């Protein structure tokens, strides 16, 4: 997978909709513009939901990858 430098990591494994999104939103609040958040989730719905969240909020989703049973997202704060 693509190696991305990140400033904060969020472990959302085991959480169901809508918690991964809500926790992502909260974690982004602590970042400065341009900083990158790494999110690890296991909810299969989070793949589409993170994309929709990125489009709606304007925070770019740098990458999405599947690692074993988890999904890894890198999102940059706008």
């Amino acid at each position, binding site marked *: 997978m693509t190696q991305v430098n990140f400033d904060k990591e969020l472990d959302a494994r085991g959480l*169901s909709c809508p918690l991964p999104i809500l926790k992502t939103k909260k974690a982004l609040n602590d970042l400065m513009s341009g900083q990158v958040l790494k999110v690890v989730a296991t*909810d299969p719905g989070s793949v589409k939901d993170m994309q929709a969240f990125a489009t709606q909020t304007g925070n770019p989703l740098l990458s999405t990858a599947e690692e074993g049973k988890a999904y890894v997202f890198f999102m940059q704060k706008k």
Partner: protein
Amino acid sequence: MEMQALRTPPAAATDAALDRAINERIDVLLEQRLEAKLAEIKAAKTPSMTIIATKGTLDWAYPPFILASTAAALGWNVSMFFTFYGLELLKKDLRKLKVSPLGNPAMPMKMPMGPKWFRAIGWNIPNVVQSVIPAYEAFATKMMKKTIKNNGVAEIAELRSLCLEAGVELIGCQMTVDLFGYKRAQFIPEVKEYVGAATFLPMAKDADVSLFI
């Protein structure tokens, strides 16, 4: 030069031609500008949602709070209006919310423990039997809470506080507070106001999404 050119042709014919030309040009420009302006207004507007929450069971507590908290995370303005049994969702203590498969044929009754094959069994218990088992509702509620926990689904209290944290406005229906004899002290102090339909409807009119749950 231009002034002269405008004056030379016969007046009546020119006016008509000129009017036509101007109108055609206006139509073209208006369409272009209107589209750009509308897109600009749409982009600048913060989306908004209003929800009417009418149900007070553990299962039906989820849809309004899931949608409200998610919309707030997307940056939308959200207001929730709690009426009838939905008022239960404003109570300080949410642990008393219950669910019952009795008279609820769509609700799968499954066990949240034991091996996979056991969990997969759908227990089809006739209503007449359900109604006579003591504490059946409490049992079903306990099972559902366990399933919720097993699946990493948030508790209602957590979703509600996430909503409040994100600025979702919780509004109570005054009429049903009176109708059911609730005391305001039973509800969380974060409830913004207690109002009637006439206050809620104008909010719903201006919202992009309005849901009745």
